[in-house]
């Protein structure tokens, strides 16, 4: 039982990261109806900007409490990636907005490769250790279970970010505009919604969340490299589809489910008879099942294709 709960803790902290990345996919899809395949690489940039930020800031903020330092690095990295997301949208996707979806999709793959290989050129291909923003300590009072303060920080910060996101989408004018745009872009435009601003904002927000996910991922698993975004990016995409693309609670729940399932498959590989090497396959088997049996995902609305 203890081992099961322990695996659950492991799975939830991994799932929180998937959820944060999945939100970016889902938000962009909601507004633009297109999957931004460069999202996983923005995630990678988030991790590296976090690493450099923490190196530069460490001497300046040495006397600060470490959680505050972690929050500053987190915010800085989110801001950087938010801007990067906006720039990518302006330069690569905006000129193609009236073109067929496929054109934009392929451009997204191009942007993804550009980021990966620029990363390799700038940072080198060897995996780098991520500086620990918070000294890892075991939390006491859990009996046989072990959770670190980093895991607690990740889960708390994820919950806060999701709460904040919910407020933005549901309680602000910008959120209202986002929802209007995702419902009917033409009608929203006719009602005076400035689509360019809303789309930029969506990209910025999604990329900032990816950066947060990256900082958490790097804090949990400590090694970062230019291709680190590929697999988590794909899995977060699966998480978004699992929850229903376009649905914010769906992306969150999808991410958590995926993280837990993946961890349990590895942890109980002997019992289940699935070799742990198949951990990455699990996500894609889930994707296939979802597409076969519930293409709109757990929280997605069935949409009729407009002719």
């Amino acid at each position: 039982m203890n081992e099961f709960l322990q695996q659950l803790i492991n799975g939830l902290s991994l799932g929180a990261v998937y959820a944060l990345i999945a939100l970016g996919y889902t938000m962009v899809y909601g507004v633009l109806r297109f999957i931004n395949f460069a999202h996983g690489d923005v995630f990678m940039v988030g991790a590296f900007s976090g690493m450099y930020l923490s190196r530069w800031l460490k001497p300046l903020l040495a006397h600060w409490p470490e959680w505050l330092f972690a929050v500053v690095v987190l915010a800085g990295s989110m801001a950087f990636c938010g801007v990067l997301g906006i720039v990518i949208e302006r330069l690569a996707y905006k000129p193609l907005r009236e073109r067929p979806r496929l054109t934009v999709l392929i451009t997204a793959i191009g942007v993804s490769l550009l980021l990966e290989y620029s990363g390799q050129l700038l940072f080198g291909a060897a995996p780098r250790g991520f500086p620990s923003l918070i000294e890892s300590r075991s939390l006491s009072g859990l009996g046989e279970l072990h959770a670190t303060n980093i895991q607690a920080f990740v889960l708390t910060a994820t919950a806060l970010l999701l709460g904040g996101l919910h407020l933005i989408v549901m309680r602000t004018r910008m959120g209202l505009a986002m929802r209007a745009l995702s419902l009917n872009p033409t009608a929203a435009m006719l009602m005076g919604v400035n689509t360019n601003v809303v789309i930029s904002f969506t990209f910025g927000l999604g990329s900032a969340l990816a950066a947060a996910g990256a900082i958490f991922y790097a804090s949990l698993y400590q090694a970062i490299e230019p291709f680190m975004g590929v697999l988590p990016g794909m899995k977060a995409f699966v998480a978004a589809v699992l929850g229903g693309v376009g649905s914010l609670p769906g992306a969150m729940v999808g991410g958590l489910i995926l993280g837990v399932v993946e961890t349990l498959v590895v942890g109980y590989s002997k019992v289940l008879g699935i070799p742990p090497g198949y951990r990455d396959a699990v996500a894609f088997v889930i994707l296939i099942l979802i597409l076969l049996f519930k293409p709109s995902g757990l929280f997605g609305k069935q949409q009729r294709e407009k002719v």
Partner: protein
Amino acid sequence: MAPSEAVTEIVVGEFASLSGATASFGQSSHKGTAMAVDEINAAGGVLGKKMRLVSEDDQSKPGEAATVVRKLISRERIVALLGEVASSRSLEAAPICQQAGIPMISPASTNPKVTEVGDFVFRVCFIDPFQGTVLSKFALSKNWKRVAILTDVKQDYSVGLSQFFKAHLSVNGGTVVSEQSYSSGDKDFKAQLTAIKGTTPDVILASGYYTESGLIALQARELQIAAPLIGGDGWDSPSLVEVGGKAVEGSFFSNHFSVEDPAPAIQTFLKKFNDKYHEQPDAMAALGYDSAMILADAIKRAGTTEGPKLRDALAATKDFSAVTGKITLNPQRNADKSAVMLEVRNGQFKYVETVAP
């Protein structure tokens, strides 16, 4: 190729993981190899010709090794091939060299299957049945009888090392209490480690490469597993400490040589390497250096660069004084050499003992 070029130089190919997950290995072995070629040329070359090294990067990726090796053979018309460190990628290149009749020397691939591919494939290091035995004996000598094993199923090296370790341990009084696996590139090992924790091992064998092993150490400590870790020569990279930090302190691994060894050959190499690259060489650098030196020696003895004659000369290599010890290539085309055990202490790899074959 212009005929004049063909007579003035001997083209030697090298493939290495200059980037990607095991970039540290490729970079090191490449530096060692390049330094050897420079030295050979400074001393007048071989057979009156300059040696020219053509290096290709396989990006640590499966499949890429075969592509770059074919390119080296067909486009660069190499006379011999040096590389790789990782056994999986040497195994991709070996059949291609065997078929083309081009002698190949792997500096550091320890999986036995590599040289079993054919009589054109050689190596200048020991093999994993020996390394597995060394590690198992070491664990038993420390009275670590309950061992958990974590294997990288994507790497022939790791699979082989775990298997040979287990074979020796289980007939010599130890037990393998848990066998877990992962794939290269994984970053989350908590699920496997949680399963391992329940079996209370004395020691954990992480038979994969340095990045994953560093992460395994970190995550084991986070789950409050106090058992030390042991590993093979795949740990030999400064990245192990960069990634693993304090978590890898007190862990042990087997290796080909130690920079603390006072042997003159090693100390001279150390100094030359330091002067050239301003850093300390690791085992991969020394083996890369040795592989090029052995090739040059064989070309001199063969008096030609024709494949079959060069192969015969390589196979006849006997008591060659290399940096990593006296090298005699046995009939299986492997080098019988001793191994050293190293301990990670204060971020350095400290010499513990030498184990003879």
